[in-house]
């Protein structure tokens, strides 16, 4: 939503998630650098481990991801209302 609201579209074939997080940060570095870096860390972990090993995602990490995603959704909602009220 942030990327689209900023007037961009991420090409989905090859590196779609990576490019999305780059574009997210570029849309508002001050606000989105932290979640973009965090989600990219999760992406790397998924690439590194989920196809090779089971059980490497901890309960702490799952709880944190659920919390961060909820907070991110609220953050995006506020950002759209503030920066692109016509889309809210």
């Amino acid at each position, binding site marked *: 939503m942030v990327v689209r609201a900023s007037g961009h579209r991420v090409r989905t074939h090859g590196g779609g998630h*990576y490019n999305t997080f780059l574009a997210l940060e570029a849309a508002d570095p001050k606000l989105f650098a932290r979640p973009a870096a965090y989600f990219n860390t999760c992406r790397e972990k998924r*690439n*590194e481990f989920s*196809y090779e090993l089971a059980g490497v995602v901890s309960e702490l990490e799952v709880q*944190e991801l659920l919390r961060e995603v909820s907070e991110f959704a609220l953050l995006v909602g506020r950002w759209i209302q503030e920066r692109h009220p016509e889309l809210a």
Partner: protein
Amino acid sequence: MRTRYGADALFPAIRKHILAATVMQPERWWYASQLARHLKVSKTSLQRELVNLAQAGVLRKRTEGKQVYYQADSDCPFLPELQGLMAKTAGLVDVVREALAPAAPCIAFAFVYGSVASAREIATSDVDLMVVGEIAVADLALPLRKVRERLGREVNITAYSTEEFARKARAGHHFVRSVLNKPKLFIVGTANDVEAVVGGEAGRAQARSESGAPGTPGHRGKKPRRRAS
């Protein structure tokens, strides 16, 4: 209180950074401008150190056209020791420690495991980092991104609360047990802190692996990634 890390006292700053970059990625050839960009220093400030290290047999030199390339010299008789020293100081541990420093009070222990800690890494080996404590990975994501940029390697973090780590170690959880049984480079805390959290047989296994050091049998090399998105 310690105000300088080991490599700062042992080497001048530029030499330390050159050694960290070259001996930690021994297969890689660097040309001077590329190394200067990587280290964020001027090319002229590197030249003397590069020449000295090549003359001392620590680096080897190759010329192609106008470019001069440098690589860690695999014939250097003390290269393995230098790699071990750099891994524990400027090449890895200090860099990761600096990134974790703001969160250190919340960390019970943190260590690097896997091929880098086992001294079996190749140039592209990822850094597998285990952090145990009451921390949030989101708070570490930006500092760890800087670590990636400095080391030129991916950093894969796995975080546990102390309670979950201890519980899974005692229950024989395959991943936690496998990490406990492998060599480690401690970033925060020591083997004693692991023992204090884990205790029992799992803690003793940890202590045994500590005495094993690099090359402990049973190390599983990294498989290639299947895909990235």
